[in-house]
């Protein structure tokens, strides 16, 4: 039984994620796997992903991973990254794609007409680079990370949770959008902790020791 299973559904570079997890958890058994049994057996699951929503969902369904992902998200410490956050929702505007429906709400695109900063400069899409993440609620995975710390983003769509209580972090481009969600044993982020230097490694280190409880620790 692996300590951490990184779900491989053929979308993007999973080596960075696996290497970063190995870096913060020396000695832990980290497997990159597309085997539903291995995902269900692992103690904790990282669900990454890049690319288009429709391709991601097709790859998940084709590989028979849907059940295992949904079950893992219902039962053990689970970290979604980038597309691994977006496809947890019900529907993505990208390719008009039905998604996993673990979380209520939809995934929407940065609208062209709003992509101006306060000086009127055009803002580029994808939102690519390092942006501040405001921790809108306390969570064990924020431990040791400054509120407002910068993380690395690359995306053109973002999540719009139907339940405001899911939001645990926001960023701004140029308006506030939800970039981190948590409920029970699931924590999922739009940014890439595996590419976010010290802040990202700290978040991953917090994840590999997390008990899966989303209530803030009492001090």
């Amino acid at each position: 039984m692996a300590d951490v299973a990184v779900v491989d559904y053929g979308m993007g570079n999973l080596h960075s994620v696996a290497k970063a997890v190995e870096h913060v958890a020396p000695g832990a058994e980290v497997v990159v796997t597309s085997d539903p049994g291995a995902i269900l057996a692992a103690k904790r699951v990282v669900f990454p992903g890049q690319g288009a929503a429709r391709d991601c969902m097709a790859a998940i369904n084709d590989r028979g991973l849907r059940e295992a992902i949904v079950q893992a998200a219902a039962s053990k410490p689970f970290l979604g990254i980038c597309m691994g956050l977006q496809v947890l929702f019900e529907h993505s505007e990208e390719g008009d794609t039905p998604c996993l429906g673990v979380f209520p709400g939809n995934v929407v695109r940065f609208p062209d007409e709003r992509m101006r900063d306060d000086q009127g400069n055009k803002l580029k899409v994808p939102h690519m680079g390092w942006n501040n993440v405001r921790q809108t609620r306390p969570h064990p995975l924020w431990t040791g990370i400054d509120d407002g710390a910068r993380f690395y983003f690359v995306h053109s769509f973002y999540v719009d949770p139907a339940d405001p209580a899911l939001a645990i972090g926001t960023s701004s481009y140029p308006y506030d959008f939800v970039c981190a969600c948590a409920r029970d044993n699931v924590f999922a982020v739009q940014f890439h902790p595996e590419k976010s230097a010290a802040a990202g490694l700290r978040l991953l280190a917090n994840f590999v020791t997390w008990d899966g409880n989303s209530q803030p620790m009492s001090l």
Partner: protein
Amino acid sequence: MGLAKRIIPCLDVTAGRVVKGVNFVNLRDAGDPVEIARRYDDQGADELTFLDITASSDDRDLILHIIEDVAAQVFIPLTVGGGVRQPNDVLRLLNAGADKVSINTSAVSNPQLVKDCSDRFGSQCIVVAIDAKQTVWGAQPRWEVFTHGGRRPTGLDAVEWGRKMQDLGAGEILLTSMDRDGAKIGFDLNLTRAFSDALRIPVIASGGVGNLQHLCDGVSKGGADAVLAASIFHFGEYTVEQAKRAMAEQGIEVRL
């Protein structure tokens, strides 16, 4: 608060070593790639770009080992370019730990490659590198695309070419002024501005940085989303952190 402008040190790699030349010739040894990558990460680099300028295909696989070593130790985005001809080259670099792959000459000889790769791997990991040189085409300044490390003219208008690459799925443009590369007199700001105004995807300005003000100008005057430089960092003239402080003093949003 907000999206930071990125500073990207660039490492030209050949035969396993980082080198730096002027106008793509007269190469000087600048050190071990893994060591240099770690140093820039410590200094706060936002991203690293590796350009494999290896001439011989025998040594091509060396870059894969270098990227593997760097990716196991440095947890910021890594872009790799040089010699990318087919989707399988992109796959091998991504599997070695690259986050983005930069395509230059092959995009000109086979534009469909950009579409195939962005469809297959996602736009977020496909950077198109454009080497541009100013030319005389009527009254307005225009720029022509060059390939093969800046040696071969293509007859393509650079800005038009940038738009086409965007339409084919490029996620970002790495824009190098061949007139300025290695010359240390600053970016070609007209070129940078022409691209940042014409495109909706991020533009990385490259070629010509000799001091920290040049980096600031690339953003504030050229409108670049990121600035790339090599020699001012490699030979210890400035650290990435000094560059960021200089930008922050001029009101540019940076990650410090």
